[in-house]
């Protein structure tokens, strides 16, 4: 395996007939990094992951895994990359153990981990007691766990998981986070996660890629996204006069549905607000600083639909 980055995507585009599924996507995932791919249904997340898996051929641009084109050198890149798509496709007629044994067996004798590793992976995702049950008897959550387990064997250098938290109970989500953190910290594995719910993965990821209609709306760290996101919320006795007073001094205030005024924090200090409002004859009844969640911020980006 050559030494390219686990994932390198440059100006990637994918069309299905006249429909643009992906356009001008740039993405890099370095070793030991966790990147989150976020966007609503139909935003192109799964298409991007399938291009990376070599299952789809890009229409334009290029994708490389470890320096190789995944469509042309799929067999080579799959020695070190593991993919799990949503919804998880599994061999229904096999037991969970057989499923892992046979998938892992496709890596050849040399790469095949011992049986204990397979038992360990099943135990890690909470399927030890169901190891010898047929997959077709599994609930959706159990299938998702098995999909995660199969992505851990043989030990990978890149893990790509499509909607991995879907169908998992809260305990399983926590366990998944622990597994992924461990993979990154102890083994330097690069991880790419997709989700339509940022809240499920925001504590894990180093960087985010927000997609909408196949285009990147935001790419960067969560800290970058949060920068300037704090809001000063002011409770006043006359909102219209208060907003006009602030605007007259260059501070745009938004009227919220609860009758308070909202101003971007950092542009206006509390002392300035008090002075300006008092001069306009408006009494300041309350104030607090509001930190919006990443989910809210991304939703705003999606609603605005503006590329970052």
């Amino acid at each position, binding site marked *: 395996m050559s030494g390219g980055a686990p994932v390198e995507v440059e100006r990637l585009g994918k069309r299905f007939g006249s429909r643009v599924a992906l356009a001008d996507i740039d993405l890099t995932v370095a070793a030991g990094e966790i990147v989150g791919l976020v966007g609503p249904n139909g935003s192109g997340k799964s298409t991007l992951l*399938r291009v990376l*898996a*070599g299952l789809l051929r890009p229409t334009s641009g290029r994708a490389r895994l470890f320096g190789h084109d995944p469509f042309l050198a799929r*067999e080579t890149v799959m*020695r070190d990359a593991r993919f799990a798509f949503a919804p998880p*496709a599994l061999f229904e*007629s096999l037991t969970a153990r057989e499923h892992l044994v046979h998938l892992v067996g496709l890596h050849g004798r040399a790469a095949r981990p011992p049986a204990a590793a397979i038992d360990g992976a099943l135990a890690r995702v909470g399927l030890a007691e169901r190891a010898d049950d047929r997959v077709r008897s599994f609930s959706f959550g159990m299938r998702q766990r098995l999909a995660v387990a199969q992505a851990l064997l043989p030990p990978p250098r890149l893990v790509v998981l499509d909607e991995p938290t879907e169908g998992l109970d809260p305990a399983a989500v926590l366990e998944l986070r622990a597994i992924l953190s461990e993979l990154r910290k102890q083994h330097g594995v690069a991880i790419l996660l997709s989700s339509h719910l940022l809240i499920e993965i925001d504590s894990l990821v180093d960087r985010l890629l927000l997609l909408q209609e196949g285009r990147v709306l935001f790419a960067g760290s969560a800290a970058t996204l949060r920068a300037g996101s704090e809001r000063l919320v002011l409770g006043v006795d006359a909102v219209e006069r208060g907003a006009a007073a602030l605007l007259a001094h260059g501070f745009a205030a938004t009227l919220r549905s609860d009758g308070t005024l909202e101003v971007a924090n950092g542009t206006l200090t509390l002392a300035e607000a008090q002075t300006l409002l008092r001069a306009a004859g408006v009494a300041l009844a309350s104030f607090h600083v509001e930190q919006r969640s990443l989910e809210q911020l991304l939703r705003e980006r999606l609603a605005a639909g503006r590329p970052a």
Partner: protein
Amino acid sequence: MILRLEFLRLVRSRRPLMALLALLLFLALMLVGFWSYAQSRTHGAVQFEYTYENRSYFNGLTFALYAFFFGFVLLLPIFAAIEGGAQIAGDAGSGTLGLLLVRPISKTRLFFTKLAVAWGWSTLLTALFLGAALLLGLFAVGWGELRLYPGVLQSSDRPQLLSRATALRRFLLAWPAASLALLAPLALSFWISTWTRSAVNAVGTAVALYLVAHVIVEVHFFEALKPWLFTSHTTAWRALFRETIDWREIAGHEVALLGHAALFLALAFRRFRRREEA
């Protein structure tokens, strides 16, 4: 490991059991039909003898040959097509083709493993069907010489007589010849299944094409088309049941079948290599 995996998946699926049950049911129906036909020919006496009046001779071997012939024409290609459709289109539809392709296995190896499993199963099914037909013929009708009269089973224009031992050896030869003939509809089904993600569509289309090709071969009007259709060659194994076997004729048909199968498989392989899994 991929061969073991594909074999295990086939064995665990319901397809083998369904195919076996359907073939056994078919044999039972054939037996009923055979019996009632013999009864009508012999005015209720059910004597399994050739007479000038009834121009028929029935015993376990003739039953087995009739049952195998009709089962081969009507059912075995369908089961071969089902297997072909399930291997690629079925896997694509359920997402398990993608599951395999994100492991380090070449498309070439995957394709030929799937083909080997599907054809291996078709060959085994042919053997089981033939064996069941012979056993049922033995126990329900009783064995004797194999006498064939000019008709659907026998392309010669004069009656043929094979001793029991010779006939059994010919049945043994008919097995690989018929199995080879199944490769053509199987390959057709494989090719169609590389164009779709629905096993039902792949199987339905392959079976429809097989039936149309089969009908065309039987209709005099389409004489000019016959040399181009694989169904002109699929029942060439019938010539094994002549007193003197014309090996050259049989080899010619088998080569033609292999040519058709090779063409379908080449097209299927080309498409499979380029195919995207959305």
